[in-house]
Structures are given as C-alpha cells and as structure tokens.
C-alpha cells in the first residue's frame, strides 16, 4: 500500500512531463489517423482503376507495407536518411512512416468491403449517367466506409497503441516519459503497468465512440 502511494506521488510530481508526453502521443495518433484515412481512401480509389499495370503497383504497395514491420521503415528514415543529408525530426519520420503504413491497411479494409458490395448498384449508377468519380463518391464510398467502420476504428486503436514505438526513434511521447519516470524511481513494474492502464483507458474511449458511430451510420439491411 505504501509502495502504491509512493508511486502515485512520483506520478504527481512528474505530472507535467507525463501530460506533455500524453499530448505528444495524442498529437501523433490523431495526425496519423487522419492522414492514414485520407491516404487509405486515395489508395483504395487507385485500386479501382481498370489499368492493369496501375493496379499491380497499387496492390504491391499495399501488400509490401502490410508485410514489412513499420519499425524498419522508421529506422530507415530516421537512421538511414541522414546518410543522404536528409534529417527529419522524429515527429516527421513518424508521421510519414505511419501514414504510408496505415494508408495501406485502410485501403485493404476498404477493398474487402468493396468486394462485398452489390455490383448492380454500381451498374445502375453508371446507367443513370454518373461519372466514375460520382459513382465513387456517391455510391461506392458511402457504403464502403460504413461497412469498414469496424476495421477503420480498429486501425485508430492500433494507431494509438503503435504510436508507442515512436519512442524508439527518440520521439518523446507518453511511453518515453514513462521510461524517464521509471529510470528515476526504479519502480519499473508500477510505471509500465501504469502506462498500460492509461493506454487501456484511451482505447476504451475510442471503442465507445466507435460503437456510437457504428450504430449511427448503420445502413438498414446491410451487414456491417
């Protein structure tokens, strides 16, 4: 019991640093969720091209980023690029690396949902005289997005959790500050457990929002 109050006092003393770290975590997670979403939609649009070579490249992009660890990409940019005189800040490396990666995943969710779509509706829209961009934005995207809400929100949760690896390239987010804290008071177990509970709390908030969103956006008669 004493140990716990001691630890909480340490947390209180360092609260400014920890809150700063939390802000950095949320900044990174929010940014990459947005850029990754936009990127995912664009990549998904590219997968719909009838150009065979174009589609091959888009598919290769998606499967390469799904098949390689993000950490390697971050290391490549952070430790490799200075060799060519390109020095990016940890935040920028994280944003670029995560965006490339998350966009690939989101595009995959959207493609999967698209395969389940009723092609008759797309044909009907073309028969009505809509342009392919109109068919995409008016018919395809609204349905595909709603069908992919579970996948897409899951990706936001992954973004939040995975943002913790940015500390490995010296981005001082929440987990990095936790490291600092534990290095000072040597209460490793409590510190990391505390970090785990904070992440779990944040994830729970996203889950609640996602459920709300899912219920609100449901299309009657379409399995989500």
């Amino acid at each position, binding site marked *: 019991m004493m140990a716990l109050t001691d630890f909480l006092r340490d947390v209180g003393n360092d609260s400014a640093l920890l809150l700063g770290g939390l802000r950095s975590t949320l900044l990174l997670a929010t940014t990459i969720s947005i850029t990754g979403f936009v990127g995912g939609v664009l990549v998904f649009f590219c997968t719909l091209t009838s150009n065979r070579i174009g589609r091959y490249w888009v598919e290769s992009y998606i499967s390469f980023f799904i098949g*390689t660890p993000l950490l390697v990409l971050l*290391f*490549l940019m952070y430790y*490799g690029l200075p060799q060519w005189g390109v020095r990016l800040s940890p935040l920028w490396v994280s944003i670029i690396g995560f965006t490339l990666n998350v966009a690939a995943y989101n595009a995959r969710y959207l493609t999967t949902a698209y395969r389940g779509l009723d092609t008759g509706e797309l044909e009907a829209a073309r028969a009505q005289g809509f342009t392919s961009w109109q068919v995409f934005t008016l018919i395809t995207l609204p349905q595909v997005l709603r069908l992919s809400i579970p996948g897409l929100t899951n990706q936001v949760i992954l973004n939040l959790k995975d943002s*913790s*690896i940015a500390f490995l390239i010296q981005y001082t987010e929440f987990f990095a500050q936790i490291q600092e804290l*534990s290095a000072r008071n040597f209460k490793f177990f409590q510190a990391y457990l505390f970090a785990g509970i904070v992440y779990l709390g944040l994830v729970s908030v996203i889950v609640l929002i996602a459920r709300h969103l899912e219920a609100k956006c449901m299309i009657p008669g379409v399995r989500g």
Partner: protein
Amino acid sequence: MRFSGILALLLEGAGYTLLVTVSCVITGLVTGLGIVALRRLFGKGVARLLALYTYVFRGIPVLVLLFIVFFGLPGLGIRPSPLVSMMLSLGLVCGAYLAEVFRGALDAVDPHEIIAAEVMGLSRLQVILSIEFPQMLRLAVPGMLNEFTTVLKYSPFGYTVGIPEITKQAMALASTTLRGIEIYTAVGVLYFGIYQLLCLLMRMIERKFRVPGFATQ
C-alpha cells in the same frame, strides 16, 4: 564489411526472427484455442472473465506489455528470459486477437450441424473437437494469416530485450558500416520475403485441408 558478411549476419538474425515469430504464434494459438474452447464449455461467468482478458490484451500496446514483463516482473522477483518475455507479451496478445478471429469463424459454423451432432449423442467436448473446431479453423484461415503477420511485424521488438534478430543485427551493422539506407532497405525486403513465405505456407495448409464446397472464396 563485405556484402556477404552483412548478408550472413542478417540471415543469422532471420533465424532468431523466425524463432521469435514461431514461439509467439504457438503461444497465441494455444491461448486462442483455449479461450474459445473454455467459452464453449463453461457458462457466462467464465466467458466474462475471458472477455476481460481479450479486452486487456488488445488494449495495451505490445511494447508496453513487453516492458512490463521483461523490465517490470524482475522487481517482483520473476525473471523471464527474453524469448519467454516475448511469448508472454506478443504471444498472449496474438492469442487475444486469435480468440476474436476464432469467435467470428465459430459464429459462421452451421448451428444445425452442431445440433445434429448433439442429437447423435456426442459429448459437448466431442462436438467442439470433431465438428466446430475443424470447420472454425478452415473458416479462420484468412484471419489467422493476418494475426501471424502481425506477430512477424512486431518481432523486431525483440531487439529491445536483447534478442539478436534481424532488426538488432541491422542496427549494429548500420552503426559500423554507416550504410543505413542500404541495410534497412535490405531488411525491409527480407521481412517481406518472410511474409511471402508465411502466405505461401498458409496457402499450402489451406489447400491440404480444403473441403470441396466448404468456405471456398
């Protein structure tokens, strides 16, 4: 350093990467299947406990879990080895996700077949092992491949606890040769190769166990 020397070190790392991945995948499969079976066999109370487990392990970052296990537990007098630490963090996370994959696949099993098996007089466990699991596993192949891929992609965390897998070798090589771009690019390709191998393996397994007309995409 010569190119062949670099390659040799990276391949040595690849061995450890595979070791970490396979150990964590096995841990995940055992826990995932165990969770599903327990949920099927016991009532609501157990199911709720298992739901809590999956929720917690899917809600905490793998890296944080790994640090709790490897750097935190020694404070309580428990000293897991690096590989065991990976299994207790990444492996258990994999198990939590796999449990969800299996649950989804289990929902797709035809309930009439289960009733038919029960009517025949099979015990609950027999039904699970002879009807539900064989169908569930076939339906779960795409989901399992996803989770195995995730394990492979998080295996670089092994370097933070001192496992000399690909990423750790690459970091050492990059700092001695100052050729980070080439080395990390090669590493990316190497991981992608392992990923392709994994996909191929899963396809082979799927083909071997394929039942005509069942769960064909």
